């Protein structure tokens, strides 16, 4: 029986090549998109779950705040781990500190500046499951001067040599013996490193034991959820025990919390974080898009099958007369949709395999799929069954319900309910397409807006150089002076962070203001505002002429002034103290800078204080835009003179700023791809539907033409139904689109706003696409000679 079903299904498929091609084409594209998105989603949700201790691991986060805004902070300082382990010895089994770092790594004559050299406690490999290919996980980090590196790095430095026992040099002060080789990291790890060095090598530095020097990640291993709850409820006391005095002095407190490992990856709201994070909303959004695209493709099958039900009606009638009960016919039609879906899945697999590498390189992902894995096979079977059910159900139920007496008389009246459902489904298809197109427009509008909005500072031809080694730091002033003498260098400043980069938060006390206020900070030399083209709205800029600016002056931004209850003018001369930095002294506000976007335009402008301080690690150099290449060559020459052992590296401020929106940009590109695909698949369906309806109305068209109707009138007659459907879709979808767009925009402090032009453009595109697809059929039908069409009767 089943064989018989497949035979019929196959012959039907071959017989109706166009119909099959449209269905298989749409379904394979839909399935390809869905499979790729599923891989992506699986990968996102599998983050960190390879750790054996996944359920027992927690990250220690601090809770800080800018005044009343509370937020989580990713980094902690050295003493937290041991103190927690000590104070909660009953509950906390173990803690491990991980400090993301970078450094110059040298083997023989090869030196590379490595960005992912992490320092960690010696129990790192016991707590986390990063398998070692060579070395012993319990002892690899036991001796302070050891290092474990990934296979990839082993090959980079040692080539064919056996790395074990060899010595690598880190910066100019550590000789490290290779004690282990790791397998390359899984792509779904929030910790992303190439080297692990025992944190013991820095244990003796004074800052390492400073509670306020937050530069590392602290993880705790806790046996049960109950114990973790117990620890969490006692963290306030823990903090009071160690920080009571500081809290009093700063007039603000910091709290601690435990973040379960399952939440680490998706919490991208944690500030000052140094791990890989993902966005759960985006993952969900893509999941929904995948479902919608699959639905659009399934609807094509449903619609095309029911539209041509007339052709199958006689067969169904005969089969019933021959004794087929309804359930057998339902099975037969399900087998047909199963066959079509199976073929589409096979094509989709080929497509996925060929597209995935392109997709990966374009979006900088590392997704992979093995179609032989049981999990993947299960997923494909699930897709097969779901699509078969969704696409095949309605046709199976409708077709199997035909009564033989009616259909065998061959005067099948068009069932109005099936036409209604068909139209409804087309409305749905174009609603989704319209929604995606409008969404795409909004996202790209918002991106354009953020990237072209006046940020309040000058980001053009600013070169950033990290003074990342002791040679250059010791001679920073000499380096700066040498650069200032170069012709293509307009201005330069050392700073703790460039706009778009790092701006730490500190507590400050302010004259005449009760309590303390938390402000974002920049520590920079006197040329900061000049280099970035910031505007002074009251008071004056820093200046060397006063001599004391570097010890006594600060600038604040307008938001700070406003938050402190001052006008820009009143702010001048007020005293401010950073309560968290020893030796900061009391500083005077000498000027107010116009608000500028020192962080992403996703965030609102926070209160900011700029402290004149010549010792910072980042050098921002404004160069002559006409001679950027020469300018960089000049900087490099000077670098080589002062720090010959270290590779010279630089970035451009504007490209760094663009990276702030990289995620949104990728989203927008994906959105474009998905909306194009969705409308293409939907149009494919309409194309076929238009063909059927033109065919069904052949006689009507013939009669109308004989009665004197013009070609254009016929064209309108055949096209207007589709246009009506699309307009209906647009009208229905617009309110939803409006709602979700506004919701999406809430992620951004500065919004472009949902304007009608987005809807008009999206509507225009949708209608245009439909017109183009449908017209072809309509024109063909309307130009037929009526003699031909009426001869059939």
């Amino acid at each position, binding site marked *: *029986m089943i064989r*018989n079903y497949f*035979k*019929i299904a196959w*012959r*039907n498929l071959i*017989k109706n090549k166009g119909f099959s091609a449209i269905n298989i084409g749409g379904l394979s594209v839909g399935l390809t998109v869905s499979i790729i998105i599923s891989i992506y989603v699986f990968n996102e949700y599998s983050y960190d779950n390879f750790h054996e201790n996944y359920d027992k691991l927690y990250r220690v986060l601090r809770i800080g705040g800018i005044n009343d805004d509370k937020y989580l902070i990713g980094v902690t300082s050295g003493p937290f781990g041991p103190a927690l382990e000590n104070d909660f010895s009953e509950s906390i089994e173990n803690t491990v500190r991980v400090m993301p770092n970078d450094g110059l790594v040298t083997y023989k004559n090869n030196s590379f500046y490595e960005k992912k050299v992490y320092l960690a406690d010696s129990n790192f490999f016991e707590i986390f499951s990063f398998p070692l290919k060579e070395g012993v996980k319990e002892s690899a980090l036991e001796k302070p001067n050891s290092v474990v590196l990934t296979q990839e790095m082993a090959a980079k430095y040692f080539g064919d040599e056996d790395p074990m026992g060899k010595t690598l040099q880190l910066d100019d002060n550590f000789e490290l013996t290779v004690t282990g080789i790791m397998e390359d990291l899984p792509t779904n790890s929030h910790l992303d490193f190439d080297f692990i060095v025992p944190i013991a090598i820095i244990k003796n530095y004074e800052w390492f034991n400073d509670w306020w020097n937050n530069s590392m990640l602290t993880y705790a291993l806790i046996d049960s959820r109950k114990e973790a709850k117990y620890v969490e409820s006692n963290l306030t006391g823990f903090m009071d025990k160690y920080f009571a005095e500081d809290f009093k002095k700063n007039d603000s407190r910091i709290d601690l919390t435990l973040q379960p490992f399952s939440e680490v990856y998706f919490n991208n709201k944690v500030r000052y974080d140094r791990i890989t994070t993902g966005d759960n909303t985006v993952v969900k959004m893509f999941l929904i898009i995948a479902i919608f695209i699959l639905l659009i493709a399934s609807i094509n099958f449903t619609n095309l099958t029911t539209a041509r039900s007339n052709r199958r009606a*006689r*067969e169904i*009638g*005969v*089969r*019933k*007369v*021959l*004794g*087929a*009960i309804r359930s*057998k016919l339902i099975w037969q039609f399900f087998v047909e949709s199963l066959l079509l879906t199976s073929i589409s899945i096979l094509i989709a697999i080929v497509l996925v395999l060929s597209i995935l590498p392109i997709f990966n390189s374009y979006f900088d992902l590392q997704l992979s799929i093995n179609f032989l894995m049981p999990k993947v096979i299960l997923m494909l079977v699930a897709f097969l069954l779901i699509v078969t059910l969704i696409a095949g159900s309605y046709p199976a139920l409708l077709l199997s319900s035909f*009564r*033989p*007496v009616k259909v*065998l008389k*061959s005067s099948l009246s068009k069932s109005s309910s099936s036409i209604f459902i068909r139209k409804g489904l087309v409305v749905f298809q174009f609603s989704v397409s319209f929604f995606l197109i409008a969404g795409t427009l909004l996202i790209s509008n918002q991106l354009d807006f953020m990237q072209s909005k006046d940020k309040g500072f000058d980001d053009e031809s600013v070169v950033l150089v990290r003074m990342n080694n002791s040679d250059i730091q010791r001679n920073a002033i000499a380096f700066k002076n040498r650069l200032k003498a170069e012709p293509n260098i307009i201005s330069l400043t050392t700073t703790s962070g460039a706009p778009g980069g790092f701006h730490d938060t500190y507590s400050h006390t302010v004259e005449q203001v009760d309590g303390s206020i938390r402000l974002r900070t920049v520590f920079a030399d006197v040329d900061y505002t000049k280099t970035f083209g910031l505007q002074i709205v009251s008071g004056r800029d820093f200046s060397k002429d006063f001599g004391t600016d570097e010890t006594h002056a600060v600038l604040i931004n307008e938001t700070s002034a406003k938050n402190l209850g001052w006008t820009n003018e009143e702010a001048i001369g007020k005293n401010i103290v950073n309560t968290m930095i020893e030796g900061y002294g009391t500083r005077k506000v000498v000027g107010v800078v116009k608000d500028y976007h020192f962080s992403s335009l996703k965030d609102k402008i926070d209160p900011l204080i700029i402290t004149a301080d010549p010792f910072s690690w980042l050098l921002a150099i404004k160069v002559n835009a006409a001679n950027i290449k020469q300018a960089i060559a000049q900087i490099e020459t000077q670098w080589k003179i002062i720090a010959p052992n270290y590779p010279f590296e630089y970035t451009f401020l504007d490209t760094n700023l663009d990276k702030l929106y990289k995620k949104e940009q990728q989203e927008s590109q994906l959105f474009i791809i998905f909306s194009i695909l969705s409308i293409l698949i939907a149009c494919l369906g309409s194309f076929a539907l238009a063909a059927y309806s033109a065919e069904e109305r052949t006689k009507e068209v013939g009669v109308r033409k004989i009665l004197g109707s013009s070609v254009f009138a016929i064209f309108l007659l055949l096209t207007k139904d589709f246009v009506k459907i699309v307009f209906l879709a647009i009208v229905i979808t617009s309110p939803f689109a409006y709602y979700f767009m506004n919701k999406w925009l809430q992620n951004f402090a500065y919004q472009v706003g949902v304007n009608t032009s987005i809807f008009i453009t999206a509507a225009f595109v949708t209608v245009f696409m439909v017109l183009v697809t449908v017209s072809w059929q309509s024109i063909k039908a309307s130009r037929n000679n009526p003699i031909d069409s009426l001869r059939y009767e």
Partner: protein
Amino acid sequence: MLLEIKDLFKWVNSGGNRIFLLNDIELTINEGDFISIMGPSGSGKTTLLNIIGMLDDFNEGEYNFLNEPVHTLKEKYRANLYKEYIGFVFQSYHLIDELTVYENIETPLLYKNYKSSERKSLVADMLDRFNIVGKKDLFPSQLSGGQQQIVGIARALISNPKLILADEPTGNLNSKQGEEIMNLFKQLNNDGVTIIQVTHSEKNATYGSRIINLLDGMIV
């Protein structure tokens, strides 16, 4: 007695008027009968045939088939009943275009859950009986009308029905082909199969043992 129809009415309502398609039909058919139903277009011949074949409902009256009261049976039992005992032959053959001659004949057996080996031998017998073994792998479109109707009859006979219902079986055929088909029916009837045919042709009606004339839904 094979079947019995008593006081049967079928009507449709059109614009407030009740139009009778069948009006007070009274009919008894015995096993071995060869009945021809005649009458002008619209007289209700096909409707009556469809009701006998249990494909169509009626509004009032009784219909007993092999002593089963069809009018009270549920759809599913009714389907089982006609599946078991009735074979249909159509004017336009109604072969399934996607199936070969062999598969067309086999189809009723599939729906009756015959085993594969049984199906093979039954279909082979049937192909033999009608001399169409050589055509078994052809599709309907590759056959002449007469040949298609022979396949149609073979398909109707495959499940060994007691009753064959034929709706103008020669209507689409030329006279020579038509004669062939009618002779085939005659032969089947001689073998014991009950046949009810709807026909316009006086000549075809003479093959039967009894003629029922219908006019405006009434037997005259």
